[in-house]
């Protein structure tokens, strides 16, 4: 008479487990969607932040790639007690003799010469714009582009000409050079022959009106002093070049020479963005946590409401474990739906914003995988307590309720 004990145990096939877990969702759709919303927003925020930071970083990198990170900017150290500082006359020639240097271009400034739209504006209103004396190869060295017109060239024309940096042109309200335009550079009218595109690596030049050395000498009071030297060097030897540069351009006082790498600043900007990214990730994590609490709450209510169902399933032969797995599965399903929705939402936001910025859309796999993992983890934690409660429901008590 042991036939009863010998029989097969209660079994619930995995597919049936999934179906059982989905039953609560099917019968309570709106509530399920609402409870998944918290997770969705949390994951969405995290995926969007990671996607956006990745997209913007890749954009920056391609920008850096285009600009080249092999430019060095050589200046005399300025500061209290040192005065404006100047480089020796032979600095340009010396710099070009450094092995890895590929191209050298120097600029100087004309003290006292400012940029005005016309000669009626008081001298003191400089607008933060300056007159810069540039070599013809400056455009090439900076790898800049012309927005309109042409750059300064070797052949100095009979009349004074200037090329405007992008900020200068904007401040002066000059959009193109179709209508002949002149600007007042301190002592003289200069014809505008070109407008440059924004130079990501040398914002100083953006805020300048450029004139040739010849023009500066004949029309302005230029003493030939070189302020800054821009050099492009072989990318593999950039550190060497950077190290020897001070002693090369100013052998007597190498400590009065400052060598910077403008692309470093762009990279620093990226690092600053990381802090913001972390902040938003933190906010996303908080939303995720709140979402998890929401799911736990809904699951606890669901267990109380479905006591009858629990009692019935126990009568049909479900073990406590089967009941626990069903409710845990439901919680995982809710969180999983939230996770998938969140990844889609985050991807959508990233795609939308990246498109508006003209970036390539990049959503890191780690954001998608991490987002889903986080969602499921939260779902598991949120479902654990309700599932245990459901498993502990006494079948007789459950069947008495209605």
């Amino acid at each position, binding site marked *: 008479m042991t036939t009863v004990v010998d029989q097969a145990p209660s079994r619930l096939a995995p597919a049936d487990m999934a179906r059982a877990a989905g039953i609560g969702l099917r019968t309570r759709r709106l509530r399920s969607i609402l409870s998944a919303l918290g997770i969705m927003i949390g994951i969405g925020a995290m995926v969007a932040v990671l996607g956006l930071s990745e997209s913007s970083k890749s954009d920056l990198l391609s920008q850096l790639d285009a600009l080249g990170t092999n430019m060095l900017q050589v200046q005399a150290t300025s500061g209290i007690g040192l005065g404006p500082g100047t480089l020796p006359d032979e600095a340009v020639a010396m710099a070009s003799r450094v092995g890895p240097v590929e191209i050298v271009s120097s600029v100087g400034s004309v003290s006292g010469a400012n940029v005005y739209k016309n000669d009626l504006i008081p001298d003191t209103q400089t607008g933060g714009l300056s007159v810069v004396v540039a070599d013809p190869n400056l455009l090439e060295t900076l790898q800049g582009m012309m927005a309109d017109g042409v750059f300064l060239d070797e052949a100095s024309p009979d009349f004074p000409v200037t090329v405007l940096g992008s900020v200068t042109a904007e401040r002066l309200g000059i959009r193109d050079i179709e209508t002949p335009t002149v600007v007042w550079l301190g002592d003289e009218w200069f014809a505008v022959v070109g407008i440059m595109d924004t130079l990501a690596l040398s914002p100083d030049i953006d805020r300048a009106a450029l004139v040739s050395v010849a023009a500066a000498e004949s029309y302005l009071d230029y003493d030939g002093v070189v302020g800054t030297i821009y050099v492009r060097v072989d990318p593999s030897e950039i550190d060497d070049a950077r190290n020897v540069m001070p002693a090369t351009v100013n052998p007597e006082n190498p400590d009065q020479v400052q060598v910077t790498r403008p692309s470093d600043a762009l990279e620093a900007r990226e690092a600053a963005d990381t802090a913001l990214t972390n902040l938003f990730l933190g906010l996303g994590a908080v939303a995720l946590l709140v979402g998890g609490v929401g799911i736990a709450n809904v699951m606890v209510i669901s267990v109380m409401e479905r006591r009858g169902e629990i009692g019935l399933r126990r009568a049909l032969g479900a073990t406590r474990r089967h009941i626990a797995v069903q409710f845990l599965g439901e919680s995982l399903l809710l969180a999983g739906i939230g996770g998938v929705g969140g990844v889609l939402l985050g991807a959508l936001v990233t795609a939308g914003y990246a498109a508006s910025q003209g970036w390539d859309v990049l959503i890191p796999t780690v954001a998608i995988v991490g987002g889903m993992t986080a969602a499921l983890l939260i779902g598991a934690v949120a479902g654990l307590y309700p599932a245990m409660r459901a498993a502990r429901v006494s079948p007789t008590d459950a*069947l008495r309720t209605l």
Partner: protein
Amino acid sequence: MNRALHLEGVVKTYPGTPPVHALAGVDLSIDDGELVAVVGPSGSGKSTLLHIMGTLDRATSGVVEVAGVDVAELSDRDLSALRAHHIGFVFQQFFLLAGESALDNVADGLLYTGMALGDRRAHASDALSRVGLASRATHMATKLSGGERQRVAIARALVGSPRLVLADEPTGNLDSRTGMDILGLMEDLNLEGTTIVVITHDPTLADRLPRRISMLDGLIVDDRLGVPA
């Protein structure tokens, strides 16, 4: 003849002040193939008795044997397996799953046996035909009338061909005419050899059954064989 159920000095006490003695010492034997009615006033312990016979609850003391096996020796998992394979339940409140069709509700009677869904549905389809509801198979449980729901519940109880079916006031929510139909289904099932215990408040229903047990205050006060139907 084998004993489907055997209870000896079964006591069920619910703690509290004062404690409730829902069953105060029940001795009862039911043979395989019997059809038994349990009657008694509200609170007399009928449902408690049914739950203990169905292994949904354990007795505070006494011996409970189902098909000759002392259930006290079985683990919770063993009892679940016993219910999955061996015992069918029918309840006054039907307990159909709202999100499922009539067919799937019946198929759920086999859910915890590990049978594949296709096979469960095939069996469920047969069971629905037996209770005369083949045409309602695809209807959602919520769209059915009370009598139809109880027939679905009976189909669910019998789909696994259990040896024992326990029904707690299966006609309690139905009009007397429908109640008679439901009882007819039970009688048919019993004719095939299934042992059935039915709790009922309806004396005319109870009188139709071959054996009637009367309960009062947690005790069996009368146990008589009636006119066989």
